[in-house]
């Protein structure tokens, strides 16, 4: 832990060096203890420390594609401290619609408003797997590189969360603030152990896995019975947990989905049978021949991960259908299988070949649409469904009140090849702006949006520069806001 702390402190020093700003003691305070110390030191300072301010974030005038079926035209989305609090119309934004008379330095909140006139808002994309977007891997709290250009390119592709290794991680980039804010190393991991890898690939593996499931389900039955019986007989001993595989038990309890790698028909059917026998929902990676056994997978409640452009000819020695199919995603979806789509190349490719790597995730999805998948399900395949697979659907994957404010603003239909992500927002913080980065700013530059009506600017100039009369009034308002 001490080593960890030292590393982080060193890292913060790098942040200082890079941005040439002083982060101050506060920015270096990674541990809660240190934070408390700082608070007492500066308790007399009337202005609210920057990181303790309530962070409001709003997107206005946008066509909001919530990812739950609704599309709200010219609507507003409001987030507070990284969580969505309101999506709709007539949304009041602090600092714009109320608290306008509180001067900047006295505010206990900060607010960013993004005018997305004529643009669309989608949930941030979720790449079920990727490589190289975050850093070296392992414990991402330690290894993440928040200045990585690959991460910026991932954000430019609209990806806000990705599965990597066994974790679900956000592409939290370090964004310079004035005054500076600390980097939230803990906030990057949405879930550790989001996947439970399992194998049925060999006879031995299959036998071993079935035994584990048998033992764990036996234990679960005994435990459930014990839970009932122990109410009558308090002395009754808890059933023996010996030989119960912890991961398999988690799967049977529905706490994590098991992930199988299975491409061919026979392997897929094995997974489906196992899932139905023991009552769990399998995630099937590389589900190439899924379209030939879609009904069986649908009945087993399977999730499928696939590349729409998978190319494998069928084994000509077999009479049945086989190999890859452009219709795979569409056929599986029609049978009730939830499909997540990944490109075949999961890293960032800078070799000049474009349209095939993680930077072109929506392009991969286009090929599933070509194969008959509906456009709504196509968007789901890179937002809601992969989020569900990783057990983080309550946090990310769609725009709903209470969920994380991870969103992208695009200049058009997400699935059109010409569309660029204009802004990416994670936890209510703007982490990517196309016009502020060197990569794509020159390609169809975004027209300048008029920031404020001229009339308001004039009023500001004419208004006498004076402080608001009483602070008590502000406090009242604050309480009022809390009661909303």
């Amino acid at each position, binding site marked *: 832990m001490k080593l960890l702390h030292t590393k982080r402190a060193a890292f913060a020093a790098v942040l200082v060096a890079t941005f040439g700003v002083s982060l101050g003691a506060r920015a270096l305070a990674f541990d809660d203890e240190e934070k408390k110390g700082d608070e007492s030191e500066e308790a007399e300072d009337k202005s609210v420390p920057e990181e303790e301010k309530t962070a409001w974030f709003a997107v206005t005038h946008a066509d909001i594609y919530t990812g739950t079926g609704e599309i709200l035209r010219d609507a507003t989305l409001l987030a507070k401290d990284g969580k969505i609090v309101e999506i709709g119309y007539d949304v009041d934004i602090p600092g714009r619609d109320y608290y306008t008379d509180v001067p900047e330095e006295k505010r206990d909140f900060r607010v960013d408003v993004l005018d997305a006139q004529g643009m669309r808002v989608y949930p941030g994309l979720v790449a079920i797997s990727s490589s190289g977007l975050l850093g070296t891997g392992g414990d991402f709290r330690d290894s993440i590189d928040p200045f990585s250009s690959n991460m910026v390119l991932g954000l430019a592709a609209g990806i806000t969360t990705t599965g990597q290794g066994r974790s679900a991680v956000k592409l939290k980039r370090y964004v310079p603030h004035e005054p500076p804010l600390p980097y939230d190393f803990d906030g990057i991991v949405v879930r550790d152990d989001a996947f439970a890898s399992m194998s049925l690939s060999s006879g031995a593996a299959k036998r071993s896995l079935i035994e584990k499931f048998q033992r764990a389900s036996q234990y679960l039955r005994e435990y459930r019975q014990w839970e009932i019986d122990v109410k009558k007989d308090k002395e009754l001993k808890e059933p023996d947990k010996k030989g119960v595989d912890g991961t398999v038990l988690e799967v049977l309890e529905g706490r994590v989905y098991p992930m199988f790698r299975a491409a061919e028909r026979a392997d897929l059917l094995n997974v489906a049978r196992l899932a139905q026998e023991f009552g769990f929902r399998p995630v099937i990676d590389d589900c190439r021949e899924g379209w030939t056994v879609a009904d069986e997978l649908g009945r087993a409640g399977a999730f499928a991960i696939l590349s729409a*452009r998978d*190319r494998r*000819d069928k084994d000509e020695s077999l009479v049945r*259908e086989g190999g890859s*199919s*452009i*219709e795979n995603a569409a056929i599986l979806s029609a049978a009730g299988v939830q499909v997540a789509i990944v490109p075949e190349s999961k890293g960032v490719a*800078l*070799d*000049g*070949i*474009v*349209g*095939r790597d993680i930077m072109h995730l929506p*392009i991969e999805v*286009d*090929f599933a*649409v*070509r*194969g*008959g998948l509906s*456009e709504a399900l196509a968007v789901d395949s890179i937002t809601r469904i992969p989020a569900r697979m990783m057990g983080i659907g309550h946090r990310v994957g769609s725009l709903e009140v209470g969920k994380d404010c991870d969103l992208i603003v695009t200049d058009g239909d997400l*699935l*059109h*090849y*010409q569309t*660029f992500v204009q802004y990416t927002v994670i936890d209510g913080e703007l982490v990517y702006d196309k016009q502020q*980065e*060197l*990569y*794509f*700013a*020159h*390609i*169809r530059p975004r027209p300048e949006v008029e920031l404020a009506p001229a009339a308001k600017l004039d009023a500001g100039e004419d208004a006498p520069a004076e402080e608001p009369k009483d602070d008590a009034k502000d406090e009242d308002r604050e309480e009022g806001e809390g009661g909303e």
Partner: protein
Amino acid sequence: MLDARTTQARRRPLAYAGTGRACRRAVAAAALCVAAVAPSAVADEEAPGLAVLAAKALVCELDGRQVVDDAVVLVKDGRIEAVGARRELAIPADYAVHDAGDSWVMPGMVDLHSHVGGPGGYNDMVYQVNSGLRVSATVTPGNARLARPLAAGVTTILYIPGSGTNIGGQGVLMKTRPGDFEDVVLRNPGSLKVAQGDNPKRWGYGMQRGLMNHHIRYSLRQGKAYAKRWQAYERGETEKPARHLNLDVYRDLDAGAIGISTHTQYYQVVLSTLRILRKEFGFPVFIDHGSFDSWKLGPIAEEIGVPAILGPREVLWHRAYSFDTEGAAQGTAAGFQRTGVSLIGFNTDAPVVPQEELPLQAAMSVRYGFDDARMGTVRGLTIVPAVVAGIADRVGSLEPGKHADLVVLTGDPADPRTSIERVWVEGELVYDASVGVRKW
């Protein structure tokens, strides 16, 4: 038979051998092909002809019509008979009719950089110069690697040798449909393949551009002299020269009947393409596999009549010490367009990028800055490569007399979401998505 085709080609100089404007006139004036190809059966074998009705026809004439709404395409004897709006064009009563409903119809797509015409064996690297090798020896019509491309609407390819040597040999222009060799070959040789830059360095230890340029110059000089000897003989001025199989291709080149398809990449390499192949020797040349920042030489290329066929490395990313893009992702096609190059097409280098992803190359060029306002993507997949390869008299647009290579599709060909419903090659239905398993 092949010789007959070649001879016929020799009489017709390549359209783009002059400057942009001159080449357009040349194509406009080009006579229709009268090569004897057996007429293929139309969809309904009893019917004397076929009418394809579509919401939109992407006609893709070089200078004329581009789009006809509510269109009908009449096909007879494997050739396009007429194209027009339904209200203006009468459909003969005995023709078979395919009503594509809301879908569109376009000419079959043309890829000028492909290696999937056969199962392999096209990258001999024993010698650094292989002018005499013909890739046509490996052509395998209907091979497994052509099934998806055909279902994607790619009906014509320039199947060329690999880029492992400076002069890889002779490519062949062929259709992707199944059939006999004689049926699928459009022109043999289709081009002379020259590779510059990095790939031929693999040929031997210590290869650098100096020696490679020397190899190319030496060979072209030999070839040019050989061609002149034969021209002198044909004029009756000299004895019949000894036949040299390695140099025969230069007679076609010098006559302008075929061009050099050059595997060239970044601008330094393209500079030697333009200077050596076009300016010094005057051969018809096109930039093939144009990539990265090759667009920097766009103005020179346009001035000396070198078209640009681009892909699959269509974007130049900033790379420290190699490429300074000031951080930007530069689109190659966008650069050529900005620098005024009139003939811009797209290629895949299949199987580096799968052949069926030819239209995606056009889509990606738009994504990275190419302005598609004047149908640059569709033209770059059809008429432009056809003109560049010198086969615009037969393929590349929906014009009477041309091969009835028709693709019925659900919308914008560049959009990956667009699916292909039917493909005809020379009037023969070769793919129908509604029958059996969809291929692409």
